[in-house]
């Protein structure tokens, strides 16, 4: 006897709305259907009405936590169109803020994962220690979460030697606490029994379903944009690509904790080798790049982030497209949440499996029409959307 239970759109475990309809029999999950269209905001259209310097601030608000990655991707795109190089000091400073924001994102995720398996104490401790990273970001950039640090041509502020001292002290504290959390995750039996052999994604499936980010690296595939396609001083700062081969939720937690330790080492290296010089080249306020297209990739905390821009010579982009890592991870999530053969998924595993993918749904919503009988799919233009909304308003008046 099976029935459907809906998780979402409003649910205590989701910070953002999405709908997952599960077909369950007793305590086992048989099938899932995911619907992510609740937070579509029309940002790609909004970027077509703003010129390039103002568009940085809209691109930053695509995702609250990965905002350093989104601005970095955007300004790299425009600099590629204009064919300008930023000074070396700017590249190192961009790396420092990007890695600090990655530490912030992973610690926030660790607290949420602990909350989803019911471990409230670890959640409170991790979020208390995350305040140190937020204090460091506030000191460097002026704001805790939405940093607005990158700009076309470099970065907006510099790091003074007093700031360097405080950053180093903060990093020592974070390293000590992260090692303690790693010990708790690896040795506490209630955590081990909830996370091992849960949410398995085999390496072959991960490649077929195009998983990205820590989900891919926890299935023992060595892929990281910072190593394969380096940007912003990543070719000069050495680091290890972390992989684990147990392919379950436990591996994903360990991949993210080890990445935090790697980030701390990268920031220390770049503070030691910071080149001197200018941190910004001045560009005119209204930028008119030559007509052309450009693609840029960045390793956001959740995976590969891709931005595409097409310019037609005016001061506003003709088309801007964003492909976020969570959208690429949704088919893998659906595969991890269905039981097949010997591998059984229980209702109790749903929050931690879904949380181990680190979903950031604000960037994910897409709208597309599919006509299943005729086998074709199309998208609407702006005028058709406006016409439809006016008709509906008049009908329901």
């Amino acid at each position, binding site marked *: 006897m099976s*029935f*459907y*239970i809906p998780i979402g759109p409003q*649910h*205590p*475990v989701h910070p953002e709305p999405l709908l997952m309809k599960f077909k*369950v029999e*007793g*305590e086992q999950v048989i099938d899932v259907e995911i619907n992510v269209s609740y937070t579509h905001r029309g940002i790609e259209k909004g970027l077509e009405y703003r010129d390039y310097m103002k568009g940085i601030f809209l691109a930053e608000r695509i995702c609250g936590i990965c905002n350093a990655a989104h601005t970095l991707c955007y300004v790299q795109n425009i600099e590629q169109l204009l064919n300008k190089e930023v000074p070396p000091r700017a590249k190192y400073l961009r790396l420092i803020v990007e890695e600090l924001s990655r530490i912030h994102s992973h610690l926030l995720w660790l607290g949420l994962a*602990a*909350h*989803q*398996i*019911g*471990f*409230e*104490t*670890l959640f*409170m*401790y991790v979020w*208390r220690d995350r305040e140190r990273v937020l204090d460091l970001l506030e000191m460097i950039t002026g704001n805790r979460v939405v940093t607005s640090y990158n700009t076309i041509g470099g970065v907006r502020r510099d790091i003074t030697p007093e700031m360097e001292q405080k950053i180093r002290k903060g990093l020592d504290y974070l390293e000590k606490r992260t090692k303690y959390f790693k010990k708790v995750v690896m040795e*506490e039996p*209630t*955590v081990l*029994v*909830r996370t091992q052999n849960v949410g398995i994604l085999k390496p072959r499936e991960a490649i077929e379903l195009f998983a990205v980010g820590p989900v891919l690296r926890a299935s023992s595939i060595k892929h990281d944009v910072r190593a394969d396609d380096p940007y912003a001083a990543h070719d000069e700062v050495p680091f290890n690509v972390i992989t684990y081969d147990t392919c379950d939720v436990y591996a994903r937690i360990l991949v993210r904790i080890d990445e935090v330790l790697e980030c701390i080492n990268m920031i220390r290296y770049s503070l030691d080798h910071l080149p001197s010089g200018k941190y910004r080249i001045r560009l005119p306020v209204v930028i008119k790049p030559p007509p052309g297209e450009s693609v840029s990739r960045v390793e956001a905390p959740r995976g590969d982030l891709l931005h595409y821009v097409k310019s037609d010579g005016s001061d506003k982009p003709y088309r801007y497209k964003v492909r976020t890592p969570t959208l690429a991870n949704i088919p893998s999530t659906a595969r991890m949440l269905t039981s097949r053969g010997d591998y059984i998924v*229980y*209702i*109790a*595993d*749903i*929050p931690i499996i879904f949380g181990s993918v680190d979903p950031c749904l604000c960037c994910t919503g897409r709208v597309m029409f599919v006509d299943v009988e005729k086998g074709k799919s199309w998208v609407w233009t702006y005028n058709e959307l406006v016409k439809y909304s006016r008709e509906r308003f008049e009908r329901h008046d």
Partner: protein
Amino acid sequence: MIEVLYKIIQMILFPGFAFIGVLSLLYEWIDRKFYAKLQNRVGPLYAGPHGILQPLADFIKLLSKEDIIPEGADKFLFTLTPIFFFAVNLLLTLLLPICGTSGVISFTGDLIFFVALLTITSILVYTAGVASVNRFATIGAERAVLQFIGYEIPFMLSIVSVVISSGSLTIKNIVESQSNMWYILGPNLLAFAVYVIAVQAELERIPFDIPEAEQEIVAGWLVEYSGKKLALFRLGRDIETLLLCGLGATLFLGGPLGPVIPGLEIILHTLYFTIKSIIILLILTTLKAIFARIRVDQMLVFSWKYLIPLSLISVLIVRVVF
């Protein structure tokens, strides 16, 4: 006639319903404040000095909220379950020896009566989940029954060890036979450990709050209750906490016994009883703070693989020693 009147006043005021009500709200405050301090934060703070009136404020707020009965629910069962849950727990507190070696009600074999009525509360949880016809409630009720299969036997067996040590099934005799040495300091230590874990599962607290898992099934079997019914369930849960901590203090820590000054006996006995049950409450809160929540099938495996053999060993130890 005077004795009947005296007994009724004892039942209603002290150490009966009013005293139990105040004490259970105090226990909830201690639980929340201690849990918060373990996590390096403040607990309730603003309602009364140090937040001591917060559980009372929560209760009064819930009484004033709208009470919605879902359309497809079984109205009879839906309305009666909270009242029975609250009433059974309140009745059982009259058996606890708070201000003397026997409670307000005491008769031969009242320990069996106690444990039998406790199983009714667990069955009422299942009824509450099934009566509110909601998918999440059904899953929560299912999990509650599975958990009940897990913890009931170790709970009974740990009480059996105490019964064998004292040789009687009456609470009054168990308390009096601890006047030389408390049971926990003897061969009953293993039984005490098993009792504490079984009580944590009965009260549905982390690591065993599986029927009410907030992250998975949105409050489980309680999901459709609101207003006065939810207030009764929560107060019933608080009284059950007091009940089980008090029973633990009676069976293992000597109940209200301790050095007395003649003339002040009632106050000192009550004080000893309260302090001992607060010690057990603090142990339960620490267990709540250091573990994650386990799955229901893992809970059954844990219970049948570890708890039941341990409780059987403790019965054997006690039988051999005595």
